[in-house]
């Protein structure tokens, strides 16, 4: 394979070029209610070529081998066109040239499990919510994405790495009269099939919650102090803060870039934030990014002070900071962009009871339900929550959506719990989907949160 890729690269008259070829095997099993709606395994493949020439850089993705000469020509032409139209030439940070094959260790290799066994497991999970009266629908699916990646560069890098992602995820819908409620369920990981075994209890618990939601009160809109659970804390740190640690986002937003200067006090002193994709056994694990750079642990914030950010080779040069190995593509259809690997808030010392005591009156909000940022403003939903009165959990609430300003909210995080939970399923959409996007945190206390109620 590398020889074939080498022949394609050899035709690119460029200052630098790299090519990535991937074979992707996907297995999907999906239930909609009692009905199995999809099952099967399929293989697809394709190439991404990147070219740096005369200070411009461009990429072409293609799926037919015979399109390679045309792709090389287009990439070179477009790189030259960019070079002619920009003031500052694009340069890439120097990195160690690596030749390596990295096949991850799996506790239980999903590729060795027959599809029939997978089907029966998913069916068993799916039957759990459906055995309850007021559950009207389930959408539960198994997905297994095995990417076999081959990366070759004109600098001499030659890397083969496999990424094997297993996940079970779904939505359980309850209905009473005209009111429907739903809740998400999910598990999975990068280290094998065992990550989706033994989920019966979890399914029962989620089913109980979505039935309880039929009786919960819609939250009243307003400004609240909130305890945010680890799942929602993880989504917050990913969505609201993490994306602005991605150098390719702030690079071209001058005002934001000025604010995100290393050394600035941007958060409360209780906040320390890390991205560490090298941590084993978590969803975001990988060894090399799609530029052939070994990924490193990056401390993004320490005690509220900005200490680092995530880079591609190009942005590391642009910011004059060290490369970090965070330039990653969804698959062979895309050129890589900067992505978080595994971002989390470092736990502090407060127990959950202590946080309740500190909160006194407010909300305890749990489990993220979609999030979005637009510059310094963010919005996301919580799947459910509880009112808190005098430091005690009270009635269940639903329809919770929070919105806020990044900088104000980072200052308004006044206490950090002593637990840490990392997410088991991912799905960050930044033009491309990243199913291995991992995030997490402890329970945190967040003051002055705008909650939009009906």
């Amino acid at each position, binding site marked *: 394979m590398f020889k074939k890729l080498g022949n394609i690269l050899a035709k690119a008259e460029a200052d630098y070029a790299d090519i990535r070829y991937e074979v992707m095997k*996907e297995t999907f099993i999906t239930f*909609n*209610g009692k*009905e*199995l709606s*999809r099952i*099967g*395994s*399929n*293989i*697809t*493949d394709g190439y991404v070529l990147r070219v740096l020439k005369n200070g411009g850089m461009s990429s*072409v*993705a*293609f*799926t*037919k081998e015979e399109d390679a000469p*045309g792709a090389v020509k287009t990439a070179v032409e*477009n790189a030259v*066109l*960019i070079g002619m139209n*920009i003031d500052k030439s694009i340069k890439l940070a120097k990195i160690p040239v690596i030749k390596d094959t990295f096949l991850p260790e799996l506790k239980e290799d999903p590729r060795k499990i027959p*599809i029939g066994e997978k089907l029966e497991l998913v069916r068993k999970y799916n039957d759990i919510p459906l055995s309850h009266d007021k559950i009207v629908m389930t959408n539960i699916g198994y997905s297994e994405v095995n990417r076999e990646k081959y990366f070759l560069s004109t600098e001499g890098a030659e890397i083969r790495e496999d990424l094997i992602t297993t996940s079970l995820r779904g939505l359980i*819908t309850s*209905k009473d009269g005209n009111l429907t*409620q*739903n809740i998400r369920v999910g598990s999975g990981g990068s280290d094998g099939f065992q990550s989706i075994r033994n989920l019966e209890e979890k399914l029962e618990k989620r089913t109980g919650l979505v039935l309880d939601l039929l009786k919960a009160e819609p939250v009243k809109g*307003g*400004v609240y102090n909130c305890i945010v659970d680890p799942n929602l804390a993880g989504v917050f740190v990913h969505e609201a803060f993490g994306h602005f640690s991605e150098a390719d986002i702030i*690079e*071209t*937003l*001058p*005002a*934001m870039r000025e*604010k995100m200067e290393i050394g600035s006090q941007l958060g409360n002193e209780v906040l320390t934030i890390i991205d560490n994709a090298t941590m084993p056994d978590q969803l975001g694990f990988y060894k090399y990014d799609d530029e052939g750079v070994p990924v490193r642990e990056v401390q993004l914030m320490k005690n509220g002070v900005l200490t680092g950010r995530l880079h591609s080779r190009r942005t590391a040069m642009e910011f004059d900071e060290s490369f970090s190995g965070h330039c990653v593509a969804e698959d062979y*259809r895309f*050129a890589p962009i900067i992505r978080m690997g595994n971002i989390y808030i470092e736990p502090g010392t407060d127990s959950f009871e202590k946080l309740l005591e500190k909160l006194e009156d407010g909300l305890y909000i749990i489990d993220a339900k*979609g999030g*979005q*940022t*637009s510059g310094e*403003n*963010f*919005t*996301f*939903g919580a799947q459910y929550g509880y009112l808190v009165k005098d430091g005690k959990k009270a009635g269940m609430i*639903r*329809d919770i*959506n929070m*919105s806020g*300003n990044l900088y104000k909210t980072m200052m308004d995080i006044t206490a950090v719990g002593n637990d840490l939970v990392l997410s088991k399923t991912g*799905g960050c*959409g930044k033009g491309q*989907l990243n199913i291995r996007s991992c995030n997490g945190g402890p329970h945190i206390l967040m003051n*002055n949160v*705008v909650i*939009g*109620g*009906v």
Partner: protein
Amino acid sequence: MKQLLAKAKKVCDQAEIYYTESEETTVEFRDAKLHDIESNYKSGYSLRIIKDGKLGFSYTRNLINPDDLIKNAVNSLKGKVEARYEFPSTITALQLETFDPVLNDLTSKEMVAECSRLCEIFKNKTDAEIMMVAGKGSENLRIMNSKGTDLSSKNGSYFLWMGLTYPGGASGIRRTYINKSFQTTPEELINEMIDMYNSSSNVVEPESGKMEVLFMPNSVYTLNWRTLSGTSGKSVYEKVSPLSEKIGLKIFSKKITIFDDPQDDTHPWARSFDDEGISTKEHTIVENGVLKNFYYNLEYAEKLGAHPAGHGYKTSRWSGDSISLKPLPSLQHIKIHPGNTSLSEIIKSIDKGIILEGVMGAHSGNIPNGDYSVGVSPGIYVENGKILGRVKDAMVAGNVYETLKNVVTVEDKTHYTWSGFFPAILCDNMSVSTKK
């Protein structure tokens, strides 16, 4: 493809092949400077087979060995996915004008030149951080099945997305312009963006409460997404639609008419057949506030005993890859009928309210129930018909089945957005939460 179909037919009762070949080039400007040019050439096949009322499905990029594709489909038959429908026999479909050959001549250089020109205009007239993406794309599509259907189409498009971002945030005024081939960006559109941006450059902090909200075309999808969830044959079948029993009843204000218009080939991406090879036609969902129809693909039409009218598309809510997706009920060419008041007149009529230029979080919340709760991105505050500035950190919340009963005015024009052609819609008695 014919050989593949013939081979596939031998192992099943019915077979269908979907083939797509597409190319796209995009030119991206960030902070008013050329940032990137990317190209993409993709092709691939999907195969659906039906045997004894069960479905087999497979796909691949490169048809090196057709037997592998057939084998994967046959293997998936073992899962026993129900498929009681029949593939259609569509012998002819209307020939639409979906590809303008002039598009072939459009170069990256010309797109760079147009973006540079626009950036200069915006730089001179605003203090915004300017983002822009121009692109051209084309797709060849062919659908064949064992019932004799053999349809193909070629679609071409030129698009331009422009964003004027308030410094320090990333929210701002965004517009999209599309055509079947390159056209110089209309001055009217450029000026509308500049005016909206400049009139909202200062930040105001109104109090929470009930007020009017003007859903701009870019925000209308918040409402439409929920309506489409409620009217999809899939939701009806799954019993999660609150509209199941409401055909013929008034669900919205009489000012609201929502319909699918797939054959309008004055715009790109018109289709005379869907991804299952069924002929398309205009399809009304809501007419003057009255619920008229749900929409189905083959599968859900069969399940509910309805007639499939060409609404099966291989798309997903997020990016997705058409060859790997099953067709689902989908309205790809949705329009909301315009009213008869100009945008400036509507704004002048607002006593107290927010122009919702864009939203955040439309994908969260209880969509089947029709609930939404979105961050303004941005929201522009109006009092006594005058724009006072923009609001940050505010949320607009409601339920589509309430909101669209309270329609005050519908704009007299529709605008292209990624989710359809929509006018601006002014609604009353909306709940807005701010920090005050």
